[in-house]
């Protein structure tokens, strides 16, 4: 039985599904639920990711069921809403997502979807009641719906493309830096001659999802990408390469080398590319050395975020930037079987140093852990700003929710992300040490 959560940052399954569908160009979510679900999503998720609002409003179609639908069923209301959505809203694909109320009432969503298909409308559906889990589960449900139902609309499956890579596991908005992170992963893959299939974000529409079966490999960068990768392996025998976290800095080089080996790419080209990126990053480190020592950058830090973020950022800061990971809080509830591995990996970042690794999504528990840890730099969500102010230490918002940052194309993955991270952390530390940021 799940516990209550204070200041929950993982919202619900319906919102996770909405996030995924909204991040694919041309996909129009059709919410079949009470009227407030879409507004909760807008206020509690979209608004707090620094600029990820595809429609300029909450999702543009919602059946807004009323009391009579709760009593007598809401299927006919969905039928009407779907028919009119196709007429009012431009879209390449309409994706029905349900809410708690319509699932409890037992509306037959599959039947309504089939009716729509019989009219030749491109419609899919996902049963996404909020009580079925959090955003991560919602991401799974939406991705699963796409993988399973798209071939029923567009049958043609093309030939395998030996260089095509599907990228999985970055949850739009839940990772506020998702666009930047994906762009950088795409750039790195292209750098060694691969063709990225990023699936979400700018320029990513139904065409990207149609070519899922054609990919040579799945690149999985968080525990949440494992399910779609496994589905594609079963359906289309696509192999996968699985990371526990975002590759930040030189970790990206390691990834590129293993992809090169696995896909039989030109190792010379890969080395050339990595060397150029490494040289640049090394120069970035060197250029900030004066500030680093003068302002006392080297310190213990606390990091609160999703597992892929915590792994990527803390390893980069610990293994390459001399910082000490004091308290690491993982907020995305990764499956139990992964937790031991995460703890042993993260505790070993700086040998001989005592790193505390905690799994929690509860604001008060996280606040206690961060406060007790006594770190001198807090990298977390805006929910932890209070404890930073109270502790009088510098703060940088890096995870969802973000109340005070605009994030459009910034990312912390890869080599460019490492540079961005150095800029942002360095700026936060300097502003603080100069007394211009009154924490």
């Amino acid at each position, binding site marked *: 039985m799940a516990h*209550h959560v204070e*200041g929950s940052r993982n919202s619900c399954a319906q919102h996770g599904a909405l996030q995924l569908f909204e991040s694919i160009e041309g996909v129009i979510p059709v919410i079949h639920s009470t009227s407030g679900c879409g507004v909760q999503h807008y206020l509690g998720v979209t608004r707090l990711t620094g600029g990820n609002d595809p429609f300029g409003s909450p999702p543009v179609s919602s059946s*807004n069921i009323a009391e009579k*639908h*709760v009593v007598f069923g809401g299927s006919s209301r969905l039928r009407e809403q779907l028919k009119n959505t196709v007429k009012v809203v431009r879209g390449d694909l309409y994706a029905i997502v349900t809410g708690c*109320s319509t699932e409890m009432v037992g509306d037959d969503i599959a039947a309504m979807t089939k009716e729509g298909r019989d009219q030749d409308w491109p419609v899919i559906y996902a049963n996404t009641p909020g009580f079925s889990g959090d955003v991560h589960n919602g991401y799974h449900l939406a991705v699963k719906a796409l993988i399973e139902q798209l071939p029923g609309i567009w049958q043609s499956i093309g030939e395998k493309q030996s260089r095509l890579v599907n990228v999985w596991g970055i949850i739009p908005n839940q990772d506020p830096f998702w666009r930047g992170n994906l762009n950088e992963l795409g750039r790195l893959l292209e750098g060694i001659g691969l063709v990225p299939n990023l699936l979400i974000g700018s320029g990513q529409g139904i065409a990207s999802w149609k070519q899922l079966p054609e990919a040579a490999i799945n690149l999985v960068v968080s525990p949440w990408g494992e399910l779609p990768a496994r589905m594609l392996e079963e359906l289309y025998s696509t192999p996968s390469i699985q990371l526990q976290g975002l590759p930040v800095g030189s970790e990206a080089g390691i990834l590129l080398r293993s992809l090169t080996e696995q896909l039989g790419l030109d190792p010379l080209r890969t080395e050339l590319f990595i060397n150029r990126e490494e040289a640049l990053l090394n120069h970035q480190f060197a250029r900030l050395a004066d500030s680093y020592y003068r302002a006392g950058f080297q310190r213990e830090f606390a990091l609160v975020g999703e597992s892929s973020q915590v792994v990527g950022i803390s390893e980069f800061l610990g293994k390459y930037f001399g910082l000490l990971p004091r308290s690491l809080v993982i907020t995305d509830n990764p499956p139990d079987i992964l937790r031991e591995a995460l703890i042993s990996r993260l505790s070993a970042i700086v040998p001989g140093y005592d790193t505390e690794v905690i799994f929690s999504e509860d604001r008060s528990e996280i606040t206690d852990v961060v406060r007790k840890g006594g770190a001198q730099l807090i990298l977390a969500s*805006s929910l932890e700003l209070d404890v930073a102010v109270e502790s009088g230490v510098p703060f940088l918002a890096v995870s969802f929710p973000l109340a005070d940052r605009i994030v459009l194309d910034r990312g912390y993955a890869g080599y460019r992300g490492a540079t961005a991270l150095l800029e942002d952390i360095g700026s936060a530390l300097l502003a603080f040490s100069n007394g211009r940021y009154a924490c």
Partner: protein
Amino acid sequence: MSPLRAKAPRSREKRLDTLGAWLGPVSAASTEFAGDEIAQRIRTFSQSSHDDLLFALRILAGIRDSVTLVHGPRGCAAAGLNHIAAGSNTRWAVTNLDERDTIMGADSKLRKSVVALYHRYHPAVVFIVGNPVTAINNDDIQSVVEELREELKLPIIPVYVTGFSSRNAVSGYDTVLHSLLKYLSGHIVPTLKNETVNLLSVAEHPQDRKEAQELIEQLGIELNVIPDDSTIDVFRLAVAARASIPLSPDAPEYLGAILHKIYGVPLIDVLRPVGIEGTGRWLKSIAAFLGKKDVAEELHGSKAAETVRQLGDFSLKGVKTYISLSSANAFSVLELVEELGGEVAGLTITHLDRLHVRHLDELAARHPSLQIHVSDGQAFEEISILRKLAPDLYLGDSTHLGQVARIGIPVVSLESLAIVGYRGVVRLVRRLKTALANNSYGHSVGKINSAYQDEWFRRSHNWHIKQEVK
């Protein structure tokens, strides 16, 4: 029978014939509301809009020293993050109901959560907020509440919002206020009347509340402000006050009516203090009621002169303005736009009911053809209307300003801009000036395509609004 005996108040539709969907000239609205029978309208295509749960959370975000526990699935508390980002000090929690809980019930989970939150924060009050899941399951919140009130000696107030029983989110304000008053009515020793006066401020911008408060205090009146930024103790004073002043005639209507009906606290009938004349009228009506007429005349005279001086030669002459706001706000901003010399091209208001009849009648006499659109969140209709009217300026507070911007009209958001009182006029004018002086951002955003099919724009704006068949 006391209206407070019920678990929740009757919805606004039932009490005031509130409509959430309507489109037509103000003269037709005025005629319709002059009759006895108001037909409810529904939409055959709709977009997300606020529900009573969200409006309940708005009030709870402002109650001091409180814990708000949403007893439901996790997403029902998502908006809490937005309130935290906006500075709410309320402690937000959700019981996080899963599939099993929706089948088996979750009383013990609720119980455990309240006890844990009580021991962590020792708050002055805990609110337990309903939602679609607990409403459909008919979870027994009440017995947990009563048991724990005894055990913890703590005010625990259940708020029975449902997300679907009213089509008008504003009903959620009534539900919270009903619950608060209901709790107090059983836990209050009747006291002698005190000399204080209530300022009824419901989910207002803090600066708006402060502005109104300062103005009344200059009349030499001591105030209890409820429910915004108040505590349970202020409510205890409020039931014995001399009178209540609403900061808006709409949102606090139920609160004012109950204070009057049950506790004999008269409600002063005033509109919203927006605009120079509007603020003056508000002050003078209050002063007349409380026997302070001269002080108010003098105060208005000096404040109005000072405001006019600060506005300089600013005028909205020739600027066709579209207004899209919550209902009471919209009618008062309309008056302000006209006071500034502007012309109102049309109105979108969140709901329309018997509380607005005087505005409808007054406007029907002056501008019978002025178009009124009733909608919360129905951006597709608004965009279609705006494309046709092509106003020069848009004032709004909805969640779809990003869509409006894409038509290229200068937009001023009133969501976090305080416009009450004399200072509010100055603040708004500063915003209007900047918006009108440079719309280059509007042009940049306007290069993004609209989300809608061209076919939709060829339809009448009210194509999807139908009379409800009962």
